[in-house]
């Protein structure tokens, strides 16, 4: 029994509409919900635009100033005489990221076992470790850097510690997720063969989780090169100090060179780390689960 399009009359449509109202249009309640959300969102946006001065003359003035003072004077990059010095400092930045990531990984490794449900019997201990890690993670790198600059003084050490602390939090989360997802059978095998606690971890757990952990660590190293390049803004070492200094002194062309250098370094590290991670985990098309946990 087939119905031809030409046979359907307006009356048929009306009848169907009466029978299945929800197939034709959202219910009044849904519609109200929709308009309430969109209306509210629009009002709030307009209020914000007004509050922060987007409708003022100062905004247009700022836009033209941004065009004439900032964008126009960024190019062409200048200060190539300083390039060796900039590259040295960029090297320091990458070294900071490396040390910070490594320290974070070292701190997080034992904690991540405490934070895994399948490794720690005591619920409060496991839960407490997780929340502690969340706490470390919830302050931005720059906030920790600000604290460490006050405590241990200006310089890369403060930046390393800032990265190490945040990374401890991130790695406890990532590592313990990897540990919780492991295949129990391999551990059972070690137990059946009479392995003790340490052997269970060495031969049952580590072979399964280590590639994942290494891959996550590399990914965060990549991410931390970006973070390390701005920590200098609060005096915690690295190229951010030079960049902020040049920008504040209106040396925009040199700042442009530094920005280009940062972008290049970030790309180079991304490429290296991606190649290494592909070797570790194999499947390169797989999306990193850590994307969820970090800021990009």
């Amino acid at each position: 029994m087939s119905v031809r399009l030409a046979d359907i009359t307006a009356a048929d449509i009306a009848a169907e509409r009466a029978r299945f109202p929800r197939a034709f249009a959202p219910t009044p309640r849904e519609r109200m919900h929709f308009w309430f959300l969109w209306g509210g969102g629009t009002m709030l946006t307009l209020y914000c635009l007004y509050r922060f001065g987007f409708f003022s003359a100062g905004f247009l003035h700022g836009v033209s100033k941004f065009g004439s003072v900032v964008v126009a004077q960024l190019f062409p990059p200048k200060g190539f005489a300083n390039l060796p010095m900039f590259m040295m400092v960029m090297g320091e930045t990458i070294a900071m990221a490396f040390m910070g990531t490594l320290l974070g990984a070292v701190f997080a490794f034992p904690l991540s076992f405490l934070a895994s449900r399948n490794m720690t019997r005591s619920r409060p201990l496991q839960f407490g470790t997780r929340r502690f890690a969340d706490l470390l993670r919830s302050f931005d790198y720059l906030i920790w850097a600000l604290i460490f600059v006050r405590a241990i003084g200006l310089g890369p050490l403060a930046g390393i510690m800032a990265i190490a602390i945040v990374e401890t939090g991130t790695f406890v989360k990532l590592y313990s997720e990897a540990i919780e997802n492991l295949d129990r059978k391999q551990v059972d095998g070690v137990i059946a063969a009479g392995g003790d606690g340490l052997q269970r971890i060495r031969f049952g757990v580590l072979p399964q989780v280590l590639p994942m952990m290494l891959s996550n660590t590399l990914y965060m190293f990549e991410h931390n090169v970006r973070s390390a390049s701005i920590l200098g803004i609060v005096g915690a070492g690295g190229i951010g100090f030079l960049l902020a200094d040049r920008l504040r002194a209106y040396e925009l062309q040199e700042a442009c060179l530094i920005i280009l250098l940062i972008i290049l370094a970030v790309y180079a590290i991304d490429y290296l780390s991606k190649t290494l991670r592909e070797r570790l985990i194999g499947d390169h098309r797989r999306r990193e689960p850590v994307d969820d946990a970090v800021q990009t």
Partner: protein
Amino acid sequence: MKEAEAVPNSKSRGSGARFEAQYAAYRREKRIYAFLFGAAFLVCLVAAAITAKFDVVTLIRGLPRTTDFLEKLVPPIGLATFAHDMREWYWDIGRWMDSLLSTLLMAFLATVLGTAIGGFLSFFAARNLAKQYLVYWVMQRVLEIARTVPDIVWALMFVIAFGIGPLAGILAITVHTIGAQGKLFAEVNENISPLPIDGIRAAGGTWFQEIRFAVLPQVIPNYMSYTFWRLELNVRSATIVGFVGAGGIGHDLFSAVQLLYFSDVGAILLIVVATIMLIDVLSEMFRHSAIGKASFAQ
């Protein structure tokens, strides 16, 4: 890791000696690799420690000062005088709450603007939707620059043009958001089914109609979940752009640290961490309930 390589092929099955030899060779190879990796890692470690002037002595000397600092963040609070002490600690709560509201609104506005612009640009940055390869390539590079330059660096530049205040921070976070959302949305766009587009095209639809009726219905759920996630990240960003004068609670925090008002620093940090944790929880709830896991998983 690759245990399969050690298994001898079918020809040598049954020959125990051959297996032993192959296994030994495999072990040797693994050991050499492990040694090389270990050596390379050690070289990197030493080089990094030297370049970053990683000094254990300074670190150990600094640690007590760090704990001192952390102790000073919280003033003495007695149980008997709890209310009074808290009021003393949060003496400037009115201004801080105002800054916090400002921070949240900054993040909100930057997310809205950045998502709107980035979402629009993402249609040109998706290989399957861009009309010309050149447009696609240029748009990819533009988005890349927008997100590779950290938002605090954008903030430094916008502060030059717009002066000190939240406006510079909003614009900085907006630019970063455009880059991030543009890339993520473009990836979502590239994963859609082309059939609805063909349908609209066959019915004589314009490019805008293709986007509206064929693309948007497929991508909106993913857009939404990325946007909530971005809002969460932007709240974090909005708390720190104040360090370079771009408004928000970061400004209060930065000046409190500079002026060594330790208990103020502690009070503001507590406000920040409470806010960020609350936003995390809310955003997760919203992502899971309103949008549903199914649409996120596809």
